[in-house]
């Protein structure tokens, strides 16, 4: 007689070692999981709330300066400075030893006062700007070549990080000039409504750069088509003083006179994040660190502040499960970002009263300006008051 028995193979349910996680048999049949969307929605909502709760971007304040911090720089190999005394000084990268006096490695006396400096990304070359843009070899005491176009004081110069022979500079007569170092000639000039304070090149896209302008906006340009900016970034309520790209090239951070710094996605015109503290005054310079995790800003009140680039990110080592949960939450937030509750919570930011009221004020101004233009258009001959897009509005001219 044959006896039928229930038999189970322990291989199917017993884990091999103690360190393995328990095996959970699961049926993925969608009919068995009717409430997938609502459940995920709730998860997304919770993730968004937690993100806002854990958003603590401020890390540290580095004090010690006895005057406002006007300049920050990041370069792996060299440290060069310029001063109002017409000198260019090159310094050691590591600080002085014990009892050693800090002295520059090399001092070059220039002919004119330089107002800005930038170092080449690969070669031992640096560029200074003042009355003209000078290219220096580190081994020489006179500039290798100097380029100018018209007569105005250039306030900042930046090397392109990818095609390293291209430079961009912005001058005080409202223009941005591009130079080619190899051919030792300026390339093109674009004149904007107001003065550009500085520019920054996208480290992943060779032809894109962003200009921080006095008219509260930032403009991202494609250097091959300067007549229309690719994107106008607006949110600041005062002059934008500095801008720096994340090394991933997806975002940039801007420092403004309105005592805040903002993070913009490259292809969006509005900021994703705003950082401010009570004690932070006009922010003059800002840098995104090379590992893309932190942001440094130097401000008027003698402090350098360190921020997280991602406000709610957990620092330190993450376990794989933490990482997975993090990724899942991010994806959920992304998936449900258009839902009103999620959106509302994710967008909420606290602002100091001064900035808040200024935003309101400017909104009103803008609206009234728009209304006026519309009225004018309505009551004048068709076509005589053309519709000018926001992007084209701010470019005055492109000079060949």
């Amino acid at each position, binding site marked *: 007689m044959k006896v039928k028995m229930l038999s189970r193979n322990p291989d199917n349910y017993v884990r091999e070692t103690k360190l393995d996680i328990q095996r959970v048999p699961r049926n993925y049949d969608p009919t068995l999981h009717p409430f997938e969307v609502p459940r995920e929605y709730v998860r997304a909502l919770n993730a968004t709330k937690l993100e806002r709760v854990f958003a603590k971007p401020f890390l540290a304040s580095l004090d010690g300066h006895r005057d406002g911090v006007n300049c920050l720089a990041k370069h792996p190999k060299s440290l060069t400075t310029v001063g109002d005394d017409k000198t260019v000084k090159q310094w050691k990268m590591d600080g002085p030893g014990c009892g050693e006096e800090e002295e520059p490695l090399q001092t070059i006396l220039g002919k004119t006062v330089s107002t800005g400096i930038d170092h080449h990304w690969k070669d031992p070359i640096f560029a200074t700007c003042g009355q003209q843009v000078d290219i220096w070899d580190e081994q020489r005491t006179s500039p290798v070549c100097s380029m100018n176009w018209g007569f105005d004081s250039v306030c900042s110069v930046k090397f392109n990080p990818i095609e390293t022979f291209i430079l961009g500079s912005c001058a005080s007569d409202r223009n941005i000039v591009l130079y080619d170092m190899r051919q030792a000639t300026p*390339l093109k000039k674009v004149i904007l409504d107001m003065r550009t304070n500085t520019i920054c090149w996208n480290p992943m896209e*060779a032809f894109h750069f962003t200009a921080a302008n006095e008219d509260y906006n930032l403009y991202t340009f494609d250097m091959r088509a300067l007549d229309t900016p690719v994107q106008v970034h607006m949110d600041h309520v005062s002059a934008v003083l500095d801008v720096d790209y994340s090394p991933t090239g997806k975002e940039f951070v801007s420092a403004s006179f309105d005592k805040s710094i903002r993070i913009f996605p490259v292809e969006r015109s509005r900021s994703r994040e705003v950082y401010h503290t009570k004690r932070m005054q006009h922010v003059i310079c800002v840098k995104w660190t090379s590992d*893309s995790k932190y942001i440094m800003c130097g401000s008027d009140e003698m402090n350098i502040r360190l921020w997280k680039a991602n406000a709610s990110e957990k620092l330190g080592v993450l376990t794989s499960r933490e990482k997975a949960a993090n990724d899942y939450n991010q994806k959920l937030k992304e998936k449900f970002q258009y839902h009103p509750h999620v959106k509302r919570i994710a967008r909420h930011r606290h602002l100091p009263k001064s900035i808040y009221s200024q935003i309101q004020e400017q909104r009103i101004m803008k609206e009234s300006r728009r209304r006026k233009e519309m009225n004018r258009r309505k009551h004048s001959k068709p076509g005589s008051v053309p519709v000018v897009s*926001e992007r084209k509005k701010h470019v005055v001219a492109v000079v*060949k």
Partner: protein
Amino acid sequence: MHATKAAKGLLALSQQEELVDLPTNYPLSASEDEGDSDGERKHQKLLEAIGSLSGKNRWKSVERSEASLKVSEFNVSSEGSGEKLALSDLLEPVKPSSSLTAVKKQLSRVKSKKTLEVPLNKREVEQIHREVAFSKTSQILSKWDPVVQKNREAEQLVFPLEKEPASFAPIEQVFLDWKARTPLEQEVFDLLHKNKQPVTDPLLTPVEKASLKAMSLEEAKIRRAELQRARALQSYYEARARRLKKIKSKKYHKIVKKGKAKKAIKDFEQLRKVDPNAALEELEKIEKARMMERMSLKHQNSGKWAKSKAIMAKYDLEARQAMQEQLAKNKELTQKLQVVSESEEEGGAEEEEALVPDVVNEVQMNADGPNPWMLRTCNRDAKEDEVQADSKELPEPVAHEFSDNEGNEKPEAEEDVLLKEFEERRSIRKRSKLNQDAKPVGGQETKDSTTKEVLSELKALSQKLSKDNRLSKKPKESPAKTVPLVQEEEPAPEEEEPLLLQRPERVRTLEELEELGKEDCLPNKELPGAAVEGEQVRRNPQEELKGKKKEKMISLQKLLTTRTPSVTSVAVPTTVEEQEDEVERDQKQMIKEAFAGDDVIKEFLKEKRETIQANKPKDLDLTLPGWGEWGGMDLKPSAKKRRRFLIKAPEGPPRRDRDLPNVIINEKRNIHAAAHQVQVLPYPFTHHQQFERTIQNPIGSTWNTQRAFQKLTAPKVVTKAGHIIEPIKAEDVGYQSSPKSDLSVMQSSPKRRSKHQKQLKKRRAQ
């Protein structure tokens, strides 16, 4: 021989020199010259000759003059002689020597050269440099376009971009910092050491070493590409050489052809002798070839080649010969072998005439055409030419002429006009051809005249068209005007909505966040639909009272089913009324017939009833058949039990379309859920189905397998803390970066100026 010739030349030269020298050496006064006779002069000459023989030149030492300012080392001053000294004068006496002709040629060449143009001013030059440099750099930059595109669309980007090459550390190096820890390991280690096992022997075989040293993949790829190219080139050259080898000379081909022809004739002769039938067939073949030739016009000098030769025929003997040869061939082919009738001969003659190059023919015809029409028109042509030269307005006078003609002689007019037109065209064509041959300027003029004609025609046409357009436009204008107005009234496209909702309040806890959500959803400005509904809900209770009253007065059924009473006015006379009534009745009848089948009102009522039924909350039946009593196929639970376990659904809120007889309001929409729903289709999506699909697919591990979950939740950008992310490099994306550093390029930059010369020249030409 040469030496003597040279000596002679020298002698002659010296004699001439002496003759030239004489007047300078002897500043003779005019009076002396007149007074002296011939004999005296001879005497003096003799004396002088004797003096010169002594080797002492007294005269020269006496003469002394001041250095002239005009004398320079570069040019000869021609002071005193009255006329300017030309360079060619200086070269005149030495004309026979051949070496100087080259110099002369050079001189003439120098003369023929134009002066250099004035250089452009600095500003323009700089602008050109800038433009050139800009186009160059933008070209360099455009190679990044695909990379940027790819990176933007990438599912995942992992930074830092460059991966460290996976290197195999040799086993010795791994061994170096390894120490035995456990007793077992120590034991093994000891054993190995005791036996002097080769731990640090050359563990790598030569093959392994070679593989380690082997070139990288990229290098190999480049090398392979080079090899491929070389092979392709080689095969190409081989093929070419083979082809070239096969090609024989023209002469060879000629000889072969001739030989073939001769052989064919011989064969034919033989065939005629041997087999007359076959010969006849052959003849037929030849006849056929002739017919083909006559049809095809192959050798009639009408092809491209023949035309080009016809142009050259005037000047080039060879071309003429070639043409004649072809003509001969044509003749040969078209010649009939059988009996030739007279008429055919004539035809042949005509053909021959036609086969003479066109240019010649035309000239002849112009001189004296056989056609009287032609003659007349030719004269007119001449007249027209004059007119053209005077006013340069060809079309108008011609038109006048036409009109005149029409006025004078109507029956002839049409034919005349046609003929004239033909003639005109012909003459224009001829003129242009002739002029092209003779003088290009004239040709252009005639061209101009023709183009003018065409232009005037076009103008007239366009004017007509524009008139038509104007007529047709006028009625159209008004809608065109209204459209932009409508567009303008729409609010201008808003800029991007701010990503952040900035407020002066701070939220710190979860509760506050909850509040944030709630406060948002009730007085939500973004949800106009919800707000309107809320208002309606609030309004409802007030209206309810009124509605109850109204209910008594208005019955739904009545409202919909009662017909509108036909009101007839008394004032209208009855006869007219009757007529109208009839018409009305007819129409009604027609409408009834047309819409016989459908009762719209009934259908609507039915639909409304159905929706009301469907939206009513359902009763819940909890009876379990067979529980507590018998169960089976035909058995049903008892009524008592059913009554007991039936849970009646609570009466829902009153319907909003209760008092609106001709409206169905959908009550499925849930206000509470609406606060959580997306109202407007978000930007990147073009259809709501797309959006819904993204929402419906769950991404959590609850609904997906582990692998799928990982894939679905992979972050877009991955970075590592503390790892420097360098800017993207050409090598990262497979491009070759320029081997020179920027500094070295800069130091060799002065040559760039020469690169721009071309552009400068172009600009100057403009």
